[in-house]
């Protein structure tokens, strides 16, 4: 009797298909976890600084760049260029202003030029570690505290730290709705 046999096979194979479809989505948290455990590509977490010995023999020029994408905000660093020594604790401030009359949430994502420098650019505090909610027309000064690892390869003399602020599409509409309903806008998280 081949027919029931075929149905059993069909059922088993359909289960494999369903499991593999779910597996595709399961890869997302799996990769996140792998990156967390191994510390790969984790720019949302403050770095650990092991050695604060300042290397006065080298001076690194750090350029600060600020971009926005699809976001009616203004975003700029208070200083655009700074000369620092490796190992020296430095604080810079960025000014962000929500130019709209509604609350919005954004996320800043850092990138480095040269990309290699990212490995040695340790941020102890950064507004990019959390999503930032701005009330209508709110302006805030936001600091970045960083140390450049003295292990930075000798041929790197200039590092560009570039932030891009993105709108978080999922987060804003709910708050806009809350705003329209006359409810207080939730405070910006940490």
């Amino acid at each position, binding site marked *: 009797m*081949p027919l029931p046999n075929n149905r059993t*096979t*069909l059922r088993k*194979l359909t289960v494999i298909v369903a499991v*593999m479809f779910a597996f595709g989505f399961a890869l*997302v948290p799996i*990769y996140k976890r792998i990156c967390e455990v191994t510390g790969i590509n984790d720019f949302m977490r403050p770095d650990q600084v092991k050695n604060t010995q300042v290397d006065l023999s080298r001076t690194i020029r750090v350029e600060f760049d600020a971009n926005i994408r699809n976001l009616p905000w203004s975003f700029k660093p208070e200083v655009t260029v700074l000369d620092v020594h490796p190992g020296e604790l430095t604080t810079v401030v960025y000014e962000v202003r929500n130019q709209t009359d509604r609350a919005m949430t954004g996320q800043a994502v850092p990138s480095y030029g040269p990309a290699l420098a990212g490995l040695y650019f340790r941020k102890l505090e950064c507004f990019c570690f959390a999503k930032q909610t701005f009330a209508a027309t709110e302006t805030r000064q936001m600091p970045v505290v960083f140390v450049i690892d003295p292990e930075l390869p000798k041929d790197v003399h200039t590092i560009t730290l570039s932030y891009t602020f993105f709108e*978080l599409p*999922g987060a804003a509409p709910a708050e806009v709705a809350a705003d329209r309903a006359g409810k207080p806008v939730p405070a910006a998280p940490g």
Partner: protein
Amino acid sequence: MASIPLDPAHGGHAHDDHHDHHPTGLKRWLTTTNHKDIGTMYLWFSFTMFIVGGIMAMIIRAELFQPGLQIVKPEFFNQLTSLHGLIMVFGAIMPAFVGFANWMLPLQLGAPDMAFARMNNWSFWMLPPAAILLISSMFVPGGSVAAGWTMYPPLTVQQGYGMDLTIFAVHILGASSIMGSINIITTILNLRAPGMTLMKMPMFAWTWLITAFLLIATMPVLAGAITMILTDRHFGTTFFNAAGGGDPVMYQHIFWFFGHPEVYIIALPAFGVVSQVIPAFSRKKLFGYPSMVYATASIAILSLIVWAHHMFTVGMPVAGQLYFMFATMLIAVPTGVKVFNWVATMWRGSITLETPMLFALGFLFLFTLGGFTGIVVALSPVDVQIHDTYYVVAHFHYVMVAGALFSAFAAVYYWGPKWTGWMYEEKLGKIHFWWSLIAFNIAFFPQHFLGLAGMPRRIPDYNQQFTEWNQVSSIGAFLFGTAQIFFLIIVIRMIKGKSGVRAPAKPWDGAEGLEWTVPSPAPYHTFETPPVVK
């Protein structure tokens, strides 16, 4: 339904007329559940898509004939390269081998039809709508997918709604091949003739069994990946959008978890065809049949754990690069087993060089060459230099065109007489082979030089020093394209019986297998009483 069972022992006396009770005209093809009809439709669909994808390749090569921009705009060029890849992979090569599976698996296994005949009809008829979606995406504002066939975000998250059409098309094509695979696995596992144990199956059936498992293991992952792109585009998720904590590199990991096995989904059935053709024309049994089976299975399993060699340049830890590099090179071992077994099959055989054998030998030679360049690109430090250059383009066209496509040609010449009842014209077949072989090498061999010299892929313009080899390559591509029009003429002439030679039940004296026990052309219904395999 037909009432006269076909006794294969007296197959030569049974004529198709007894069994031919089916609707005629368009309705026959729309409603058919017959594996032979569906196999035929798969093959014609595949050839149509091959021509469409081929025309795109011709436009690409025409644009690349000279530096600068002559024929198409860069945006359109990007759509052409992307669609050429998608159409050739999902529209041409995969349906071609599903077509061979539909036609030949029941005949090789002694089964009356595929296990799920109606699902078989659905899985075919999902393909034309998918093809229409894919091609029509070129005509919507913003055009079709222009980010390469791999559909990497962030580009694919930003594109116009031609991208949505492409995503749906790939969803449908994927669903179709999942259904086809379920059908093939069930047919192979449940409908074999009495006495045909798994280890007595023809190699083509073995390679398809393993391929079908690879398909149902990886195609749903691709479906998941492009669904994530779709929800990133329209539903505010941020799987790959950096703003929400997503990562475009993760798409590459998920995509290549499908994408690398896909390479073997295309290559393994091609291995199967060659494993039928080489013994037939060497008049010897396939050398090392069990090792062939195990090698095929090892290739399939290894293919699932090597995906990140496609992305050595994303910034992977050294340990990861080393793992993926060595795991990839490990695949050369079972592949080498196969190549040596084919060579050993020919050793001291009484070889004749009919067209199927010529294409099988062309496959063997050029696929091995493509395999060697594969080992070169598997080396992480080398790959960083030649990533996304024409070297890679040359490499995968050696394995996809000279590998899978040549094997498909071998299959058409080998089994064509069984389908049509007429022999093809040997002389024309040989011209087709040599024309294709020479044109192919003129088109793709120089691309190795271009790639090593640093010419990037997917760019409509190039630096002047690349001009000469690009011109050679373009001329080769035009010659290769016209050779395939010639192939169409050969097939039409075979169907019309222009050779004047009727195909006997077994046109190749060295061939083995149940498919040669039924008359040519194969009657509409075969093996209603299963044959007994001793």
